């Protein structure tokens, strides 16, 4: 099963600035996903990132606000641009990989807690 790390684990930022979140996987994976979890809320998919192609964004999320890079099969970044307090959330990276019993599963990183002042 995939092991995922995210950097930074948390950050406090000023409005109007940008933050880039890194997601590193210990194995090569095809599908990577970025989710947002607003305070006290559930997870919402921001975009799907495949290596070698543009990320696919969900309704309500745009590339100018959340640019994503996927330079290889083990790494991706999500940038939160021109931040406002409404962007304060936990951002989670997720990948598909083969887990126990050879079943395809989604594994999650530990998340990045972002606070925008």
């Amino acid at each position: 099963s995939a092991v995922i790390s995210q950097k930074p684990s948390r950050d406090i930022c000023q409005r109007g600035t940008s933050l880039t979140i890194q997601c590193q996987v210990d194995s090569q994976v095809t599908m990577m996903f970025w989710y947002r979890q607003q305070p006290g809320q559930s997870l919402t998919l921001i975009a799907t990132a495949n290596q070698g192609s543009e990320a696919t964004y969900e309704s309500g999320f745009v590339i100018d606000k959340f640019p994503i890079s996927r330079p290889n099969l083990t790494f991706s970044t999500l940038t939160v641009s021109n931040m406002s307090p409404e962007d304060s959330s936990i951002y989670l990276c997720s990948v598909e990989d083969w887990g126990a019993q050879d079943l395809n599963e989604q594994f999650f990183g530990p998340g990045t807690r972002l606070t925008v002042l």
Partner: protein
Amino acid sequence: AQTVTQSQPEMSVQEAETVTLSCTYDTSENNYYLFWYKQPPSRQMILVIRQEAYKQQNATENRFSVNFQKAAKSFSLKISDSQLGDTAMYFCAFRLNAGNMLTFGGGTRLMVKP
């Protein structure tokens, strides 16, 4: 589009007792996967149990089991012999096939009391 609903925002249970968390979903598809994830205060999302829609047998994983009612589009999670470490947010999730996104319910906050 698929939707997932968890009608219980918060629940509590005494240690060693049994608790059931509810989940309903809406889809027009016949083949899909259902999951329960646990998110403790550490924020780490942990897969608890999964169910393939084509399987009639309910999935079990140690103290965790599901009651999957496909016709009713219901997927409840039963936790037996509750432990203090089970205290967490629990999310029900739906996925069509491999390579597809997970659609999450709103979550149920479970508190296990000593």
